[in-house]
């Protein structure tokens, strides 16, 4: 994976595979604390303590257990390469929460990448899931900016009209792209 945004997509696909109905993705770039934090929370079937430990281990993942693994160790590795880490909190039947943090200024920190495309792809490919995206930034002086997107209103309004109708697609893409651009840090490439 070349971008944190791609990892987020991958982790969110796990949530979908775990039959979640509600998935939230939070991204916080904080220059004051020099931290980049991403959190994916879902209400899917979750996992017991034993499994939660195993999915963090890259050697646990084999082809047959593919649906739970591989993606998480990759993200963990990316986080650890930039003096960060990953934590996974889950309980069987109660969903899962994965949090990864990176030192923002670390030379090996993976770029955040194209968050808007990740969000749009998830929205389009899983219309039955309730998505909440929150992109937040704090600059060096402590100024906070954020873009929050909850798809409840959008879905209520669309009704039977598909999100892949060209006019709707253009609208939603614009909304997400502009929202993220408006909150992005100046120094972020």
């Amino acid at each position, binding site marked *: 994976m070349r971008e944190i945004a791609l990892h987020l997509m991958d982790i969110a*696909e796990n949530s979908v595979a775990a039959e979640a109905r509600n998935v939230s993705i939070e991204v916080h770039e904080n220059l004051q604390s020099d931290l980049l934090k991403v959190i994916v929370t879902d209400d899917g079937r979750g996992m017991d303590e034993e499994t939660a430990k195993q999915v963090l281990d890259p050697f646990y993942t084999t082809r047959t257990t*593919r649906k739970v693994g591989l993606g998480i160790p990759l993200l963990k590795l990316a986080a650890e390469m930039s003096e960060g880490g990953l934590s996974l909190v889950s309980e069987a039947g109660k969903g899962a929460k994965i949090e990864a943090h990176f030192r923002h200024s670390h030379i090996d920190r993976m770029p955040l990448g194209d968050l808007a495309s990740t969000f*749009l792809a998830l929205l*389009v*490919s899983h219309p039955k899931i309730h998505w909440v995206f929150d992109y937040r930034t704090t600059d060096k002086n402590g100024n906070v900016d954020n873009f929050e997107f909850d798809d409840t*209103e959008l879905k209520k309004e669309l009704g039977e009209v598909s999100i892949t*109708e*060209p*006019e709707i697609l253009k609208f939603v893409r614009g909304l997400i792209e502009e929202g993220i651009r408006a909150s992005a840090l100046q120094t972020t490439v």
Partner: protein
Amino acid sequence: MPAIKSLEELKRVREEALQKKKMKATPGNVQVIVAMGTCGIAAGARDTMKSVLSFIESNSLSGITVTQTGCIGMCEQEPIMQVVIGDQPKVVYGKVNAEVAEQIMKQHVQNGIPVKDYVLPL
């Protein structure tokens, strides 16, 4: 976020979409499926999907369902994309980068001719 303003805009856009959909008869149900397992995503599936969506947008194609599937066991062929038109058999494509996706959208989805060079033998 200017939520209320956006919502008004959305209402208008939705009406537009409904009107246009009524006017255009869709040539059978068209489904485009992009594989989004870890292998697919790592190989560039998000760009593939982005290309499909932007083709729909720029060519005003109505009535196309875009969805995803997980790893289908041919990781070396990722990004994988499938096209289903009406009750015709499903066509599975491999190594579908953004450019190939655009070609498939144009030639297969729009004009009904599969892009043979990228069809995976199943």
